[in-house]
């Protein structure tokens, strides 16, 4: 279970990734990040046959 993002956690994340964002920008991004993390959690929760081959080279024909 992922923790809800905070300004401090986004600050650390942005610094680690070399993203020179202001605190105001990070604060404004909190709702978007929370929604993104929810989507990624839902992705992890999808019951998948782990033998399912991912579409890594996408060409229909």
């Amino acid at each position, binding site marked *: 279970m992922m923790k809800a993002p905070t300004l401090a956690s986004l600050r650390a*994340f*942005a610094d680690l*990734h*070399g*993203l*020179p*964002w202001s605190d105001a*920008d990070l604060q*404004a*991004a909190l709702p*978007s*990040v929370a*929604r*993104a*993390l929810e*989507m*990624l959690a*839902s*992705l*992890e929760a*999808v019951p*998948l046959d782990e033998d*399912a*081959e*991912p*579409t*890594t080279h*996408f*060409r*229909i*024909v």
Partner: protein
Amino acid sequence: MRELVWTPVTDLARMIATKEVSPVEVVRAYLDRIERLDGTLHAFITVCADGALEAARAAETALAAGQPLGALHGVPIGLKDLVDTLGVRTTAGSRILADRVPAKDATVTARLTGAGAIVLGKLNMHEFAYGPEGLNEHYGQTRNPWDAAVARVPGGSSSGSGAAVAAALVPAALGSDTGGSIRIPASLCGITGLKPTYGRVSRAGVLPLSWSMDHVGPMARSAADCALLLGAMAGYDPADPTTSVLPVPDYTAALGRDVKGLRVGVLRGMFADGLAPELRDALAAAVHELQRLGAIVDEVTLAHTANVQAAAFAIVGSEALAYHAASMRTRPQDYQRDVRERLFTGAFVSGAHYLRAQQIRALVRAEVDEALARRDVLLAPTTPIGATPLGERGTRVDGAAVDVRAALLSLTRPFNLSGHPACSVPCGVTRDGFPLGMQIVGRPFDEITVLRVADAWQRATDWHTRRPLEETA
């Protein structure tokens, strides 16, 4: 002159070829209209007036000399401003690429101009194609031409393409579609937009949002016009390794045929939930009309589409960030806020998330293939809502709160993941008179059948012939 700009591409091409109208006259008519209306609509980022007139004069000379003519000889078009044009700046609607002038044409530009089309200009878009509303802070906000009183979203990301075609600033345009960016503005602006099969049209020279999800396709006022454009630009391109070697059929052969005996699967489940009531009625009427025309209709549900939004976010989020990583580190303030935040969220997608999303993608594709194994096309709404006021992030449908951005993307994204061709056609209007669209989805590389159904629908109905409110006043 006013009616000339509303002439279908198919008729314009014929009228030019038979010298009923001159390419110069046609180009001037559109340039006059752009001059008159684009100060309000902001559909264009760059208008190529001099280049277009020069090309029109050359087209006229070629006609007079009896030279062989391409299928689009003398027909003006607009290009979304992420399609490269030799010597004409191509910005992707961004400040970051504001001064970018390509040294060569995109393959689609070269093919369309090779068929005789004349580029009128470069069309506005959601910055870097990363948004379904069509928002742009840098080049003026494109407005939905159907808006009479309140500024409404045109839909995106191909917002300028949708608005320009709907307002007859161009007879046809190119868009790109990563999560619905051709079909969403087509739906909200009341025009026709075709996302071809992944691999049918080259992406070489088209600035990417997400390499594995991007599709390039035509936007026009009818399926017949889209068929003509698709034929001129489709086909294998060594510069795009994902293009198919399958031969390009004559898409105009799809036109004028009936749909008797064709099997149409109406998508249920998430495609039928949370729709504006007027859209539910419009779809029911469409099903009835297709049955009256002889189609055999049943219903079908796609179970894996419930996971599409999360999978699409993981794929597009990480691919888009990969492209923008350097600029996000050095010029974050040069992105508009919503796009900057969206790119930032891509940094939370791990490699495992990405591959899990690609597993879901394989399942979605197999499921759509299976649904189409026993049917010729699938039918679904394009967007669950019509155009909302600019700046409105939420709306209500049947009393329920709805996030506008999520709603706009919800029904189109499945076919970006699966790669199947899908064409949005107008099918009704909201209570306030704003357009609504439905999409016709076909088997891979079977654009012929998709266009056949869309064309039959448009010959039986008049939704696609309606004009924005100021035109009918």
